[in-house]
């Protein structure tokens, strides 16, 4: 019972989101539970707003140990870990039950996938439970409206999905999105509720179509050497907590998203929620992109099978 395992271990974790972000509810719940249940032996010290390393550098930084732990997004790493494309696209899940089932079955696959890439994955969570399509004047309810619609998209697979819809995907830095929507450089974009709210995009594109679909996911990872400094007992505790928080992250996020939607509505945003048939029709068009991703490896195929099983 003596030695390193008994000493308090403080792990620096690089976090791309801000402290006020809805995602932070998840981090707080997770890190507080870990500190409490390991009796203070393991603590995570947050560095918000990518002040330590940028989101795109986080995976490498955690792997080589320049940062001990980090939060990633599937969209930021699908170039390195192609399988993650499946958790980046729009519409991987559309309800809490579906998310929880996928979480349970996909997590072991992700654990072996990430250990192949020499990092330890502890937990993952939705990037958003709700995807908004933003526009100045119109709700985008009919698939025909996507035809030639200029849309800012993030990452490789979102662009593909926009193309499948007949839209014109355009790349730009997130920091330019506000001005671009305001000036009409792009007419529309897919966006998470959290980012729409924090960037105040409702000021420039008050018509928001809520798709009722997820977009992107985030992953908590830790450097394997740091992980091995934790006693087996505490490792088990952390994994247990991660499983619980990971599962409940959907409802935590959902709650914050609902608050954000309400606050944007008070500031003049208007919402249209797709009906079930409308959503089905949309999914039919954008989901084939997953087939494309799953062709990249056997593991991708296995993950897609798990996801499809819970449709």
């Amino acid at each position, binding site marked *: 019972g003596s030695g390193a395992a008994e000493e308090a271990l403080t792990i*620096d974790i690089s976090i791309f989101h*801000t*402290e*006020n972000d809805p995602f932070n509810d998840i981090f707080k719940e997770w890190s507080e539970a870990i500190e409490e249940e390991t009796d203070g032996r393991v603590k995570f010290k947050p*560095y*918000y*707003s*990518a*002040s*330590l*390393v*940028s989101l*795109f*550098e986080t995976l*490498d*930084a955690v792997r*080589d*140990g*320049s*940062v001990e732990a980090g939060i990633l997004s599937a969209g930021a790493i699908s170039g390195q870990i192609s399988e993650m494309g499946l958790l980046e696209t729009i519409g991987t899940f559309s309800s809490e039950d579906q998310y929880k089932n996928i979480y349970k079955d996909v997590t072991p696959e992700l654990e072996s996938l990430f250990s192949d890439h020499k990092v330890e994955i502890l937990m993952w969570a939705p990037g958003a439970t709700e995807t908004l399509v933003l526009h100045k004047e119109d709700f985008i309810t009919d698939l025909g409206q996507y035809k030639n619609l200029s849309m800012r998209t993030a990452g490789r697979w979102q662009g593909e999905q926009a193309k499948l819809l007949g839209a014109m995907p355009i790349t*730009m*830095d997130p*920091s*330019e999105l*506000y*001005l*671009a929507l*305001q*000036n*009409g*450089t792009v007419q529309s974009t897919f966006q998470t509720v959290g980012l729409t*709210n*924090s*960037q*105040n995009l409702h*000021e*420039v594109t008050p018509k928001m179509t809520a798709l009722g679909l997820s977009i992107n996911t985030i992953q908590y990872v830790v450097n394997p050497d740091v992980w091995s400094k934790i006693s087996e007992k505490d490792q088990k505790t952390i994994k247990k907590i991660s499983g619980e928080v990971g599962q409940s992250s959907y409802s935590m996020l959902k709650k914050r998203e609902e608050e954000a939607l309400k606050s944007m509505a008070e500031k003049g945003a208007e919402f249209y929620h797709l009906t079930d048939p409308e959503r089905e029709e949309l999914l039919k068009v954008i989901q084939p992109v997953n087939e494309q991703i799953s062709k990249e490896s056997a593991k991708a195929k296995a993950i897609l099978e798990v996801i499809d099983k819970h449709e």
Partner: protein
Amino acid sequence: MESFLLFFAFIAALMLFLTTGISVAVAMGMIGVLGTILFISPNALAQLSSITFSNSTSFVLMVVPMFVLMTEVISSSPIGAQVFRTTQLWLGRFPGALGMGTVLTSTGFAAICGSSPVTAAAIGKIAVPEMIKQGYSQRLAIGATAAGGTLGILIPPSVALILYGVITETSIGKLFIAGFLPGAMIAVLLCLTFLIIALVKPEMVPVTKIKVKWSERFISLKSVLPIIILVIFVMGSIYTGFTTPTESAAIGASTALVIVGAMGYLGRKNILQILSNTVKTTGMFLFLVIGGVFSAFVLNRLGIPQSMASSLLGLDIPGWVIILLINLLLLVLGMFLDPMSILVIVIPLFFPTVTALGYDPVWFGIMVTINIEIAAISPPVGFNLFVLKSVVPDVSLGEIIKGALIFIIPLLIGLILIILFPEISLYLPNRM
């Protein structure tokens, strides 16, 4: 207390390196290297590579070569000189006219460019040689351009305001609108500085006493046409939605190439020289950013700015004293860290306290932005200073720093006015 000691160690190490006359980029990079090996782990040196690649693939820095190219193209032609001659014909007998013209040109360029050192480099390349030619003191010419460049991040579009908006979830639209009046006010303060110097030390700011015919004045306006076309293309492309601000840099460069080419100034030799200058300035710029970000990474990883901030916030003192202390800390950090690092590291620490004390987030954003404007021109680490040293190589850095110190005064006055009269920043956004 330990954090203060480490901060002083950082400063001492930086000074020691700079004493050898080593390039600033290498000095800051080596501090990153030593700090990483001593305090983190040799493995973490990989961070140098990450920072290098992420900055050299960054959207924000993409505008550097393009705006530098635009400036090099313009300054390879007589357009710049003609515009300054026109300014002189019109305002020549007004004390400090050319200096004010430079400040106003910076203000105009700030409206298309979101970066402070890029604005300084662009205006400096053209304006400084002209001002010196007209008999202005080197110090003054350079100081004004360095300070004028800082308007780039106060007048929208602004990288700093966008970053502040995202970190603190403050409306970027409101921040942009809030930047206008303070930006104009600082431009006026910089102009007043010239006026005062012209009255007190007229030998530093020569006034031409030639008689000019009105017809000559009007004919001279023709020479401003190319610049007006350039401005219309670049600003127009952003505000009509044709381009994002980043893309507008490309429009600026191609328009400049077409205009100067059409005027017949783009010989093969000339264009090789233009490209060579652009390449070297870009290389210098990025190397500097990488060194700066790497040393900031180490400071941040050791939690130094964070614990300095929290020991400040732990004091039991009234709100206005906290605001005052925050400003002092920002000014001190601003001497050594690059502006963007300050924003990302320090703002999240102060913001909750400041808003809890009842201060307006938009106002705080403008206040912080003016602080990091000062950071950009305060020695020993000031990006605008380094960039100017590079585009006007014949002037020593010591001379540049002395010039910048003169113009820190109007910026400080601006800062104090913003703090005392929040309405200057809040009047416009509150009417949105």
